[in-house]
């Protein structure tokens, strides 16, 4: 277990390190030409530009800039935006909780709907019930977040006016008001993802139900519900868990769209704002936090897997 754990940790750390370099250079590529000249404005003298360059460390070679940035990042300093002159970490500390709450709620919704429906579909595979579940899900899956989000917003502002409030309030200030704002966006993120969970649960369950140990359980006279919901479901979970790691990525994509539609002050919208402001420093910081969160999510899935399937440790 310890070996598995350290292997996964080291892998995640390595990936994050390489990603930080990629994101850093992509961020620098965001501003065509000299960022210092852009910040200084078109009428600035060469001396002013040089001063700004020096202040931002842009007169250093690029690998030097990256190393400086990286060492600062390890100390928890993700730089200061030259556009808004705010510390990036403060901006992110405002935005990240919104996105985190949105993705966790979305994931919860996807799992709570997806797994039970998948199990039911697998138990009656080939029947009318199965068909009745799969076809609507396929249709739901075709609705991307920006269509389902628009539809949800329309319904909310027209028919569910008590349920939805548009202004974002932090969870710690007023939990109920916060949930009022977040529930709908979370549904818009979660529901289109649920079909993926259902499909994976269904096919994994069907696979497991055809295996010999299920037949053995039957011959031993173990109750039907126990076989299906205890033995089979547990054996069917690992691929579903792995899929959840993949879903984190989709949720990040959903963040960009849904935060934009519902005007939530999260990271997704933050990245888009930074890009349109050509704020390379801030977009680098935001992107690295997003990527780190995604890697952490996948790491947690990897660490949860051995608890469901011990055999993974032996590989």
């Amino acid at each position, binding site marked *: 277990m310890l070996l598995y754990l350290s292997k996964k940790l080291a892998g995640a750390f390595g990936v994050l390190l390489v990603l930080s370099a990629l994101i850093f250079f992509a961020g620098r590529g965001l501003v065509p030409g000299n960022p210092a000249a852009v910040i200084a404005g078109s009428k600035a003298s060469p001396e002013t530009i040089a001063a700004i360059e020096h202040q931002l460390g842009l007169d250093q070679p690029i690998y030097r800039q990256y190393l400086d940035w990286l060492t600062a990042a390890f100390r928890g300093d993700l730089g200061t935006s030259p556009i808004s002159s705010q510390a990036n970490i403060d901006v992110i500390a405002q935005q990240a909780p919104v996105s985190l709450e949105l993705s966790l709620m979305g994931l919860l919704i996807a799992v709570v709907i997806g797994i039970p429906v998948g199990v039911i579909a697998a138990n009656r595979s*080939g029947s009318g019930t199965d*068909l009745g579940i799969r076809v609507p899900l396929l249709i739901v899956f075709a609705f991307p977040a*920006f269509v389902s989000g628009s539809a949800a917003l*329309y319904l909310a502002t027209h028919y569910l006016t008590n349920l939805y409030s548009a202004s974002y309030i932090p969870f710690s200030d007023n939990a109920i008001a916060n949930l009022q704002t977040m529930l709908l966006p979370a549904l818009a993120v979660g529901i289109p993802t649920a079909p993926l969970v259902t499909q994976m649960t269904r096919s994994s369950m069907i696979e497991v139900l055809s295996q010999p140990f299920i037949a053995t359980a039957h011959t031993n006279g173990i109750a039907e519900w126990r076989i299906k919901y205890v033995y089979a479901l547990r054996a069917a979970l690992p691929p579903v868990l792995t899929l959840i790691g993949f879903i984190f990525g989709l949720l990040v994509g959903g963040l960009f769209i849904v935060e934009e539609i519902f005007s939530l002050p999260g990271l997704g919208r933050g990245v888009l704002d930074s890009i349109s402001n050509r704020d390379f420093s801030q977009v680098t910081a935001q992107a690295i936090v*997003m990527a780190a969160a*995604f890697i952490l999510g996948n790491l947690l899935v990897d660490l949860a897997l051995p608890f469901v399937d011990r055999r993974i440790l032996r590989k």
Partner: protein
Amino acid sequence: MPTIAERLPSHGVRLIRRWPVRGIVANIAVSLILLYIVLAVLGPYITPFAPNQVGAGPRLSPPSGDHWFGTDALGRDQLSRVVTAARPALLSAVYAVTFAFAIGTVIGISAGFLGGLWDGGLSRVVDLLFAIPEYLLAILVIAVMGSGLVNASLAIGIACIPRFARIARGSTLAIMERDFIDAARLCGRGGVWIMRRHILPNIASPLVIMTAINMSTAEGAYAALSFLGFGIRPPEADYGSMISSSQQYLLTDPWVVAFPSIAFVTLVLAFNLIGDVMRDHLDPRSRRGVSRFSASPTE
């Protein structure tokens, strides 16, 4: 004298002979795709109005005999715009998937076939690409390269490479166990010939399934990027940007959002259905427990 392999119908011909289009749902899906292809090709010639003609009718008029899908905030005919937008929608998916297929398959097959350091190195790169959320990757690529139909499609294509590379590598490894690969080697065939003539045709099924599935993913991703303003430049018609620019009228005039949404969702749904049918048909493992839904009684 032709070899036995050469006298057999080519893989492409065999694939068409067992064309997986059986059952009503599959046929509807294929017909829909064909309809969109026709619209994409003929679009500009058959629309009742020029798609970008401002003031073709009154602003925000509801669906009527003159404007079947109503008009948008600038009085442009929505039917014309919805029809015209079929072209960027299909093109983006084709560009992105072709790019991802080409690069991903070459990476996957060569990694699986050559093994060793090459495989180790490429697999790390692919893992790395997989470790970035796809949308974040696509948006960063666009931030650097600039927006537009081709750039957005390429960004999506880059994000989709790992999927193709992984499936190609895995399938290649499975095929490598088979005797005919050794036989070809003993005959003195070179690596490239074996990869092209033996491995590629034998891993075609999972790749075709992957292609079908990714068409819908790419199409959805492009519309999302276009929604965020990274797609084809306005005023050109595009489902994502049409939906985002009409967002503010959603509450008062819902049809301006509804028609592009319906057109777009129908296309994605058709791609999804085809992907599903192909998977059920070509992947023997998932055929167990397959319902009438995809009805493929043969084989």
